[in-house]
């Protein structure tokens, strides 16, 4: 017995130390999430001690001045959701169309070319999209509507939303493509064998089967859109503006966060702290979207017993 324990003793001691180190490394990701939550939460609480929570949630006016500041976040969230809605109405159909083309129609050679191209699109930094939105797309929107005698501003929600939509296309198309390809070929073959055409098979068998995955992809796109910062900082407005007109300028949660933190305000001024109150809501929304998205994917995987993805 002693022969076996002697050498193993020191070994297992070292092994334990290293495994402990690995556990500590793993815990860092948890610490980060908690760190983000608390760093936002504490300042947000501080903000709500200074300003009414009720006004923040229901108020339709947001202005900051030396004398008096009012923080009603409704116009800010309205702007965020308007731009997000425009972005998603570009990204979901186009992203899904891309995914259908890639998974159903493109041959393997075409796929080999298309995939890296979509990856390039996915890799473009958002600051670049922002510059493109402000330099090219926004003036184009103004010119286009001027042709119909309609006035659009140079930082319209529409221009922002379109560019943001393009940014989200790869998010939706790549996940949807994976999901569509994961639909078991037995399902497709069953449909073909019944004398169904390719498109009938796609519409009636493949797409319904992949629906949870497509929902998941869209939620992820949604989450990306409301958290996106650079495009809106560079191309959207600063002015909280409660309107239905996408040709007007609107501001978003992320724009307000950046704006209130880059100025020269005291760290404990309501102006600065309002950034954290907005950040808290952004955190909660994106987390909830991600949870639902993960649940949808899990549902899809369980239904068809898929281990990949």
């Amino acid at each position, binding site marked *: 017995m002693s022969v076996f324990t002697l050498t193993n003793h020191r070994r297992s001691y070292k092994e334990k130390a290293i495994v402990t180190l690995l556990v500590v490394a793993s815990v860092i990701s948890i610490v980060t999430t908690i760190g983000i939550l608390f760093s936002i939460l504490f300042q947000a609480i501080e903000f709500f001690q200074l300003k009414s929570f009720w006004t923040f949630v229901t108020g339709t006016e947001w202005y900051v001045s030396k004398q008096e500041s009012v923080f009603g976040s409704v116009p800010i969230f309205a702007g965020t959701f308007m731009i997000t809605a425009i972005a998603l109405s570009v990204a979901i159909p186009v992203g899904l169309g891309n995914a259908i083309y890639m998974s159903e129609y493109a*041959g*393997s050679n075409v796929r080999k070319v298309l995939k890296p191209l979509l990856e390039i699109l996915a890799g473009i930094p958002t600051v670049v999209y922002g510059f493109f939105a402000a330099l090219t797309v926004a003036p184009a929107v103004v010119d286009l509507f001027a042709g119909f005698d309609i006035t659009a501003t140079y930082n319209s929600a529409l221009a922002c939303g379109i560019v943001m939509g393009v940014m989200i296309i790869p998010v939706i198309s790549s996940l949807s493509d994976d999901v569509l390809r994961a639909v*078991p070929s*037995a*399902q497709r*073959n*069953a*449909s*073909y*064998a*019944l*004398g*169904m*055409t390719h498109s*009938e098979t796609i519409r*009636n*068998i493949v797409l*319904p*089967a992949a629906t949870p995955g497509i929902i998941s992809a869209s939620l992820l796109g949604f989450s990306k859109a409301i958290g996106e910062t650079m495009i809106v900082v560079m191309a959207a407005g600063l002015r909280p503006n409660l309107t239905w007109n996408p040709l007007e300028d609107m501001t978003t949660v992320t724009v307000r966060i950046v704006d209130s933190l880059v100025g020269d305000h005291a760290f404990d001024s309501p102006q600065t702290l309002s950034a954290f109150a907005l950040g808290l809501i952004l955190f909660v929304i994106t987390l909830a979207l991600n949870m639902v998205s993960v649940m949808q994917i899990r549902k899809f995987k369980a*239904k068809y017993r898929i281990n990949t993805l």
Partner: protein
Amino acid sequence: MKLNGDTSQFKIVAENLNLHYGDNHALKAVDLAINEREITALIGPSGCGKSTFLRCLNRMNDLIDEVQIQGRVIVDGKNIYDKDVDEVAVRKRVGMVFQQPNPFPKSIFENITYAPLKHKLVKKGTEAESLVESSLKSAGLWSEVKDKLHSPGTSLSGGQQQRLCIARTIAVKPTVILMDEPTSALDPISTGVIEDLMMQLREKFTIVIVTHNMQQAARISDATAYFHLGELVETGTTEDLFANPKEKLTQDYIRGRFG
């Protein structure tokens, strides 16, 4: 094996059928005639091309990239690889049942009505309902599922699922049913039920079955064809082929299996 003379009495005739997967010559000049309202079994070691041949009969191989097919497959007097034949229409007349039961994740009812509604064989309502009933009865499943037609097809047992797939195929009113190892994923009892069903179906349909279970071929089929490395080695009535195989390869295969 060459086909001689008039072949018009046969339901299906394959003539000089060659198939390549890229560089792989998977079917080599296969000639085979299949009788109407009989069960023809395709047997042979795995990789012999029997499933590939089966999938040529309803043009399922068209779905795979890099497949090239030469030769003719004549069903009801018409070469299904002719330019004026739509492969979708071929599959409507030549149905197929697969190895793994693959009901759609829809209700039992919808599993059956999905294709007939698309083909406009029936209208929604009573027509569709009576089609569901008759199809399920033909597949011997009606009594087991008549009270739960709207529960998902995937909730059935494996054997029931396979009979649902058969019912779904029958509902399109094909004249030929292809079966690709339909019982290999099932337990012995379910296998027995499906074999009995096939014996009944043979009165209305021409059935071609791929099986690696020789007892099954011997039990249910009228004719048997033995494939080896992409070639059709021997064909004949099941009785003949199992009793006096003419070719050495066939003898080895049958004896080897029977031990």
